């Protein structure tokens, strides 16, 4: 089976400056993949390479089994949908006119226009000028056009930037529907916590290099990042004595501003620790926090930074 995206040692330089270096990864069909990284990590460059908007400087990339760059790739673009970051569209046209124009360019069937506008909830605003749309409505319009001609791969670049929580949730609902319909989705973001529940796996970029790739649980295992147990000590108990106790057990811990303790525990030692804590009469409440993508990201990022500093 071909992959949605297959990259080998992919690199891109702009006027001698490396924007992306030696990225090798595959994106399977029918999955939702998160593309993570801070601003300037190379996310936009990678997306442009996937869309065939720029030519790779080195390495190889295949999208749906074809090279996306060059003349023969024009036909491939019908099978890929794309929502650029914060697109304003044509303010003087109505929502429906924008979609009709883009549908013609993509050779999408005309009846898809109404269907897609309904799907993203813009049916009632279809005859209003896009310049009167809110940010959330423009993003939904962007999503509608990305789905024209039912593309096999949908690329969403920072789709929730500037959206309120309600609009963000609605957007991810549609992403979930796309996956169940068999589309492959690549969604970039720097808001890690928000992306985590919606993706099957992640590609993490840092300074143009692929830091890690895999499902969130795989990444957790790979990173060896400790889990976190948050403990609330009873009012009557002495926090200092509890801290001393933790110290005696050799457990790394930190006191939060709200008076709760963060206790770091290795993946294997979690159950043992929980039994101990449950038996401790000084403890009021226990919360187990799994290593989130955000912490994972910080952990991995910090790791390379230290290596970089040592090298320098």
């Amino acid at each position, binding site marked *: 089976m071909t992959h949605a995206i297959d990259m080998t040692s992919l690199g891109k330089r702009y006027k001698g400056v490396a924007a992306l270096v030696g990225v090798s990864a595959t994106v399977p069909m029918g999955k939702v993949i998160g593309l993570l990284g801070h601003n300037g990590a190379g996310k936009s460059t990678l997306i442009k390479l996937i869309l065939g908007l720029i030519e790779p400087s080195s390495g190889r990339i295949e999208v749906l089994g074809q090279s996306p760059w060059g003349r023969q790739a024009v036909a491939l673009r019908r099978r890929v949908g794309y929502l650029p970051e*914060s697109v304003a569209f*044509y303010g003087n046209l109505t929502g429906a006119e924008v979609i009709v*124009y*883009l549908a013609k360019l*993509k050779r999408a069937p005309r009846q898809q226009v109404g269907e897609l506008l309904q799907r993203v909830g813009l049916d009632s605003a279809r005859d209003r000028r896009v310049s009167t749309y809110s940010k959330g409505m423009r993003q939904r319009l962007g999503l509608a056009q990305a789905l024209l001609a039912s593309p096999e791969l949908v690329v969403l670049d920072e789709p929730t930037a500037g959206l309120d929580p309600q609009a963000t949730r609605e957007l991810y609902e549609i992403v979930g529907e796309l996956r169940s319909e068999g589309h492959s989705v690549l969604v970039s973001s720097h808001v890690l916590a928000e992306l985590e529940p919606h993706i099957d796996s992640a590609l993490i970029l840092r300074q143009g290099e692929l830091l890690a790739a895999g499902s969130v649980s795989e990444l957790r295992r790979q990173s060896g990042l400790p889990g976190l147990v948050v403990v609330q000590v009873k009012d009557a108990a002495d926090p200092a004595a509890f801290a001393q106790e933790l110290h005696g057990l050799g457990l790394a811990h930190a006191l939060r501003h709200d008076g709760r303790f963060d206790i770091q525990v290795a993946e294997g030692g979690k159950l043992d620790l929980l039994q101990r804590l449950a038996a401790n009469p000084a403890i009021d409440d226990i919360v187990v926090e799994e290593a989130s993508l955000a912490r994972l990201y910080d952990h991995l990022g910090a790791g390379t930074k230290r290596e970089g500093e040592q090298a320098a």
Partner: protein
Amino acid sequence: MSSIAIIAGKEFRDDFRNRWTIAVAILFAVLALGIAYFGGAAAGKVGFTSFDATLASLTTLAAFVVPLIGLLIAYDMVVGEQDNGTLLLVLSYPISRTELVAGKFLGHCAALATATLVGFGAAVVIIQIMQPEARSAGAWLNIGNFVLSASLLGASFVALASVISVTTGDKARAAGLALVTWLATVIIFDLALLAILVLSGGNAWEQSVFPRLLYLNPIDVFRLINLTMLGSGSGNELFMGMTATHVYQLWVLYLVMLLWVVVPFALAQFLFRRKEV
């Protein structure tokens, strides 16, 4: 429908929505009628005068207006899409860069040509009804010549605007460059030529080279096309005086005009293909 036709159709409709082109059509119609009716006032009579005199005045007017509108409707054709974030989007669609620029170019040219034809056509119809004597084969030839050359003049400035649009990074800079281009071609170029003419004092070099320098400005080529057709004594004495000793071939003038369309258009295509987005 081809991608070029789809893009051209959108630009064509946008130009009429933005009303620039409608303004040109109305301006041409009103001024053509006004000049035709009041053109003879200095000689003591009002009423529709000959088409030739009207055309000569309209040539002077079109030489200012058509380049300006061509630049105005087309300067943001690529940089504008870059500004509102749609350039990457459209380039991710199944169209080539060549098709995008070609479609936009053709759409704007068609809009400007339509405005010229409709505006001027309306005036011609009215004059024909009011003044049956204006009907003659020669008049029709001159009218056709005017509309064709004005459309080519518009196309050449749309092509120049497309070069500006693909080379600039933001809309404000593109608008500034468009304005500079207009001033340079409408005013500065002719002033510079006039200065050369005065300073050189009428030597032999001037006689052979000077008339050909006018080829370097599409606006002057447009004037020459129309004044060559209309002959001297049509109200552009200064301009004709500059070139009186040289006989221009109409086909050469049209060839030069066509080059002023094709060369900037090809340059814009070349530059856009190499542009990093």
